[in-house]
């Protein structure tokens, strides 16, 4: 056996187990959804798959709830990822300072990110409680009326954004902090020698050099936020009146509550396509920003 062949064989043996599991976990499901989205498999078919052609896709196009959830998911993702980026940058700038016990401060600020989403969602449910939560307690003590955070369609999605920002900002901050630490200090010194101001330093040095990290964090966080499930499931359950329902929650309900598996797979694929579109837009925006 030739040595190149042998070396290739060794590589194959090394990566094959991981590759097989990856195929099973990531690739097979998408193929399965493709097939399932062309089937009716629900209580009406006795939970047996029956080919129905493009019926599920037609239903998806006319499904007001799907498009409402899509809009809500986009609104939630855009607002929370935007806020996370701003706050994360501010926190990264603070954490970048030399500071006694910086390590402890850093790990404590990381705590929200490390907690299971369901744990912290339950916590926030109590904080937003009307009238006994601490926020409403504070409002009452200064003589204001309490706010039905989780019971009002206008407020509930904001509550979800707040909880999400609280949980994921530490992650954003940490990635941006890693980026900040890559920027050589003499750039700032050079600008200072030329008499530049601190805001100019932020605009002319920090942000441009941080751009790859910002892009990475945007890509990762947007993908995660568009798939939001845990937080909504525990904090609001999608309510009130479906005002916080995300696409992932809708897909979950279709499968596990309405037992309509064919349509759930269609919703999931529709969501995947929206996701690809967002990623594509992000890539285009990045290319435009670089040019």
């Amino acid at each position, binding site marked *: 056996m030739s040595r190149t062949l042998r070396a290739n064989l060794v590589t194959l043996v090394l990566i094959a187990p991981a590759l097989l599991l990856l195929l099973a976990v990531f690739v097979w499901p998408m193929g399965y959804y493709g097939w399932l989205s062309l089937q009716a498999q629900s209580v009406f078919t006795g939970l047996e798959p029956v080919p129905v052609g493009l019926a599920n896709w037609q239903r998806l196009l006319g499904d007001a709830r799907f498009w409402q959830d899509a809009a809500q998911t986009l609104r939630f993702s855009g607002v929370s990822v935007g806020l996370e980026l701003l706050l994360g940058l501010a926190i990264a700038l603070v954490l970048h300072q030399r500071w006694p016990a910086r390590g402890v401060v850093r790990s404590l600020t990381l705590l929200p990110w490390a907690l299971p989403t369901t744990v912290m969602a339950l916590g926030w449910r109590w904080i937003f409680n009307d009238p006994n939560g601490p926020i409403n307690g504070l409002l009452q003590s200064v003589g204001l009326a309490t706010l039905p955070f989780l019971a009002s369609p206008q407020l509930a999605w904001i509550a979800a954004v707040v909880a999400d920002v609280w949980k994921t900002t530490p992650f954003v901050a940490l990635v941006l902090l890693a980026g900040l630490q890559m920027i050589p*200090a003499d750039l700032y010194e050079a600008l200072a020698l030329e008499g530049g101001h601190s805001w100019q330093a932020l605009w002319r040095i920090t942000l441009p050099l941080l751009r790859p990290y910002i892009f990475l964090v945007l890509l990762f966080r947007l993908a995660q936020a568009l798939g939001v499930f845990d937080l909504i499931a525990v904090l609001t359950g999608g309510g009130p009146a479906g005002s916080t329902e995300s696409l992932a929650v809708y897909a*979950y309900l279709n499968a596990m509550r309405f037992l309509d598996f064919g349509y759930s797979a269609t919703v999931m694929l529709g969501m995947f396509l929206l996701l690809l579109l967002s990623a594509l837009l992000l890539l285009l925006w990045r290319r435009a920003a670089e040019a």
Partner: protein
Amino acid sequence: MTSPSLPSDPISGGPMSRGPKASSAGSTPASALLGRILAVGLLLFWSLGPMVWQLYTSLRTPEALLAGWAGLASGWTLANYTQILTGDPPFWRYLLNSFLVGGVSTLLTLLLAIPCAYGLARRSGALRLVMGGTLLATAVFPYVLLFLALLEVARHFGLANNLLALCLPYAGLSLPLAVLLLQAAFAELPPELEESAVLEGLSLLQRLRWILLPLLGPAVFSTALLVFLFSWNEFPIALTWLSRSELLTLAPAMARIAGSSVYTVPYGAFAAATVLGSVPLLLLLLVFQRPIVAGLTQGAIKG
């Protein structure tokens, strides 16, 4: 005095490595210090406030909670904790399940990821490029999309309500990040170290065992911690694979607690559950802060 010196200004993000010189140049040290204390204080309040509130709630009687801020002297209790710890199943059972799943998933992930990362790091060209792109795409993929198909797998192979079987999808979902991190670590090792061992007749396994893995210790450890955190926190798959209450891991258990009490308001018990569910992670974070941060940061820089 003229404009504040740049490196010390918090806005500019300049490092403070030349501390004394920098802080004496601009605004007075006292006010700068005050500003920084304020900023960090605010940060800690924002990060820890909600958790502290949970801790407070978990130690109060229901009456004391409804009474609001008055009467802090009385109304303290441990009843919330005894209630959830003696429930059916007791709360520690969920922690134990999560621990088991987290531990086994982590081991399984490393077992698959280390050879794969090694195999990829020692190659160049198309294979590595294609695999790198695929791994990155799967690493950012919102895996919640996969739950229905994975549920079908569980149904087909009878894997539902089996904690060890749950580790399979967990390992699969953790693989992209783990392989990316480990591959970067392998690639950073000078190739001569391994070549030298080849000349001395060490087999592939011996090289991994005696040379490569000892040198990659820190990278393997931070990868393991991130995988453990993922498995500990995972929700949708656990939610759909596990239904027997004594098998629930922490995440679906919390959701069930939340769902079961929509109309009653046992806030104290909620809060006690949140606190108990957070303490292991707080400890993990405080002890292993450095490797966790290293893992996350490496992921960002290499990605």
